[in-house]
């Protein structure tokens, strides 16, 4: 789970000081994400086998030209399952971050702009959600709703939004007394317009950085929930499910769990790397310190 951002960063409108593509690490991150997205989008075209197709005659085969990453205990092709798994992981990441990000940002905008009792109430609510260790609350929610991938996504989004609320509110507090906001108010702009046109664009940069980290966190959390039986269910080719299915073969056929885990590591690592790169680019002060 990625840490939250400790320092304020500049808005998108104050364009990034360091071009994002100038840093080779960002290029590596973007390339890895592109590969990941390509696998997710075109899995049916590039996967050599049907991910659910069982072939008991060739079960537990080590990696070979016929099965690049070997086969699992039911003879299913691991490479094909990983490719289809990319699809599920990408959906999880995007849905969690989009829903939690939008909801949390709206809460933070309203709290920061309204101030007073509204701010107090919304921030206490945010603190409550931040008090729960994410996976444990997600387990309880997934337990209440019943184990399924959709419910795992709901559970992870429920523990993710609070960070966006706190982040947005903090930014709004430092912006709402600035001249451009006062000026907009003076010419009679509505509060919706001030929030949407003047404040939101200036808080997007830290939110994007957080979103990059959370894409990775959501993928790990969903895989973790699936691993203990609270997310995707077998025979779904989800990475956490695959690691769980390979658990009893870790001594004899380690590739069953090894490759899906490496897939998670690469996907999450590339989002974390991109998050680092964005932070360096958007915050000149931090970027000087980091390099």
């Amino acid at each position, binding site marked *: 789970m990625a840490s939250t951002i400790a320092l304020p960063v500049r808005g998108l409108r104050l364009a990034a000081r360091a071009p994002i593509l100038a840093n080779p690490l960002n290029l590596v991150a973007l390339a890895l994400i592109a590969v990941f997205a390509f696998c997710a989008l075109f899995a049916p075209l590039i996967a050599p086998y049907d991910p659910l197709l069982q072939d008991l005659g060739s079960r537990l085969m080590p990696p070979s030209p016929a099965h690049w990453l070997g086969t699992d205990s039911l003879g299913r092709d691991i490479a094909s399952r990983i490719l289809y798994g990319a699809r599920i992981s990408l959906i999880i990441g995007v849905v969690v971050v989009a829903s939690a990000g939008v909801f949390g940002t709206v809460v933070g905008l309203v709290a920061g702009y309204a101030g007073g009792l509204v701010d107090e109430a919304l921030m206490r609510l945010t603190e409550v959600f931040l008090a729960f*260790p994410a996976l444990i609350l997600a*387990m309880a929610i997934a337990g209440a709703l019943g184990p399924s991938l959709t419910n795992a996504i709901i559970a992870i989004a429920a523990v993710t939004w609070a960070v966006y609320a706190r982040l947005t509110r903090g930014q709004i507090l430092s912006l709402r007394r600035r001249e451009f906001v006062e000026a907009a108010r003076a010419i009679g702009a509505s509060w919706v317009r001030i929030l949407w046109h003047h404040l939101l664009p200036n808080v997007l940069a830290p939110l994007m950085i957080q979103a990059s980290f959370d894409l990775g966190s959501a993928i790990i959390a969903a895989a973790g929930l699936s691993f203990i039986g609270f997310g995707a269910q077998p025979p779904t080719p989800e990475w956490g499910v695959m690691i769980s299915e390979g658990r009893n073969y870790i001594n004899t056929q380690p590739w069953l769990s090894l490759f899906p885990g490496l897939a998670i590591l690469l996907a999450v690592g590339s989002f974390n790397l991109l998050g680092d790169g964005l932070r360096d680019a958007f915050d000149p002060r931090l970027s000087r310190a980091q390099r």
Partner: protein
Amino acid sequence: MRFLGFLTRRIVGIAAVMVGVSIITFAISHVIPADPVAAALGDHATDQQIEAFRSEYHLDRPLPEQYFTYVVGLVHGDLGRSIRTRRPVADDLFDSFPATMELSLAALIVAIVVGIPAGVWSAISRGRLPDHLVRLVSLIGGSVPVFWLGLIVIGLFYYQLGWFPGGGRIDNFVTPPPTRTGLYVVDSLLAGDLEDLRSSVLHLVLPALTLGYFSTAVIARMTRSSMLEVLGQDYMRTARAKGLQERLVVLRHGLRNALIPTVTILGLTFGSLLSGAVLTETIFSWPGLGRYATAAAIALDFPAVLGVTLLAAIVYPVANLLVDIAYFWLDPRTQHG
């Protein structure tokens, strides 16, 4: 006086958060499930059992009254009865808490002992090989799924190399030390039992390293960036200009100031350790809260899952409070500001 005021404000804040936490756990247990009776009793309960359950848990009363009863129970330490173990959940939690505490503390020690020097090393050799190495290892630590890492570590160090045990807290043929703190390593030290000590330390190594890797990465990154910021400060130049040895400049003037943000991160880290413990304990058959929660969740043992959730939500703000107290003493500015 200022400290007392700060402490009072924080405790009131935690109490407010706890009220919120109780509302959420209440909602999860009483409102979200379409049928809490079915969730608790399963599909095969008789009408009579359902009726008895509804009245025992006051499910036939209005929601506000149910919440009130729930909170009164919580305040009296009544977390309900586990469906799986048939014991009071509070007793189960009491029994499994020390194991989780031992694992989390060991992981935290790993994170501090490895993370802080790694961060300092990375900062003072910025742009060179050690820096790249620490950053790469930290990036992996922040991206690796803990349950997968646990499996790989067991495969390698238990099955292949046979260096460490593959699970549990102590060897089956060894009698656990008499309980004083509940932490086997500490208890066996107190009892002076070297056999117990050896066995419990060996059992602790793999799960603590697995669980601690993520926190180590977080702390190394944090220490590196705050150290880099501190290294550029004027007082560092002054210290060097005075002719102090570089080692003293870095450790006495640099690290002491760079550690302040790292201490803040420790509290947050503790929360992530608890989440990580759920999965790590499951992998290493470590009989703590995490494994208890997972076993409970798989058995649809709702009171038990909520008990763990509630306890975890209390531990997190309390850990942060302890960190804030440490912070208060570490950074004199907070005492006057």
